[in-house]
């Protein structure tokens, strides 16, 4: 099978079988790219995951683009990404259609109402994980209290205050903390 087609079908499988977001996709991609098709070494793959985590965007899209670019240039990147998105597109379009068709039914509303508090909790839990990464540079199971980072804590409180008080946009807040925090670290020369 030509390389491009192989890549395309590999990433369709990644898109189709990775349920539950980002990290669920990593072993699948590893399996397809490293073990089944031998398109990358394990070392290259580890680099890929590091970069995917450092850059914005979903890990599977990042990996698709990375693998595609390295193995087949821009066409490879586009094809891998389309492959990765295609199952999502088909499945969610159908689900979205049914959701909007039936969501006004009161029975459906009753069931959905029980899901919403859980979604709020899940968003909160994702927020907590990122906060811990920011304040301790560690996952929640590996937090060491002495690693507490004052600069990030002040940035977090300041950003939250501005958000609550002035309803600032998300992007200006994220970009702003990036700029202010980097300047503070560079001026004080604090170790990262």
């Amino acid at each position, binding site marked *: 099978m030509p390389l491009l087609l192989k890549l395309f079908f590999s990433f369709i499988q990644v*898109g189709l079988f990775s349920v*539950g977001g980002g990290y669920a996709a990593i072993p699948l991609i590893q399996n397809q790219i490293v073990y089944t098709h031998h398109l990358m070494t394990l070392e290259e793959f580890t680099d890929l995951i590091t970069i995917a985590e450092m850059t914005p965007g*979903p890990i599977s899209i990042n990996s698709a683009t990375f693998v595609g670019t390295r193995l087949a240039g821009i066409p490879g990147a586009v094809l891998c990404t389309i492959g990765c*998105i295609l199952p*999502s597109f088909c*499945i969610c379009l159908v*689900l979205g259609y049914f959701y909007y068709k039936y969501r006004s039914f009161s029975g459906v509303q009753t069931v959905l109402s029980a899901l919403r508090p859980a979604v709020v909790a899940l968003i909160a839990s994702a927020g907590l*994980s990122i906060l811990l990464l920011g304040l301790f540079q560690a996952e929640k199971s590996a937090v060491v209290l002495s690693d507490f980072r004052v600069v990030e804590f002040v940035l*977090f409180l300041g950003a939250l205050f501005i958000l609550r008080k002035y309803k600032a946009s998300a992007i200006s807040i994220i970009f702003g*903390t990036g700029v202010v925090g980097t300047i503070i670290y560079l001026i004080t020369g604090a170790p990262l």
Partner: protein
Amino acid sequence: MKTQEKKVIILWKLFKATFLLSAFTFGGGFVIVSLFKKKFVEEFKWLDEDEMLDITAIAQSSPGPIPINASVILGYRMAGILGSLTAILGTALPPMIIISVISHFYTQFRSNRIIAIALQVMRAGVAAVIFDVVINLGKNVMKARRMLYILLMIGAFVAAVVFDVSAMLIILGCLFVGIADLLINLKRTKKEGQV
């Protein structure tokens, strides 16, 4: 003509918003969902809050990347299949552009001190945005004044944070609670109807 013009404006706004938000989304799917909520519910007022939470639940439970899943449904809601494709394009392009550029000099990127600092401190900003959204959402759950929903929220949080239960399982569990709640309601109204 006028409605067509309006549709073009909506598509452009949709593309611009998803593109910018996707370019700044570090961290998992729930991060971009809170940014979507802030933009599309609070700023544009295109959707109501419940709708956004429902879309999140569907996006989380479907295969594939959560931001893409949410974009598909959000886009479909705003402008049909064309809207879906627009939102996908907006969400997928930034990581594609960034990664294809970085893949050419990723060793330099990885060891650059300024980039490492910026990426680390930005987490504080991302966390602040999520907490801001969570405060608004949590307030509304409390406002509904239904013990069941408050307990579900607390239970789901403890399950996710303390016991590392997967998001998928938590949503599935609450789905069953919702169905049970519906059945109890139906039984009750039936009984009242007979009296």
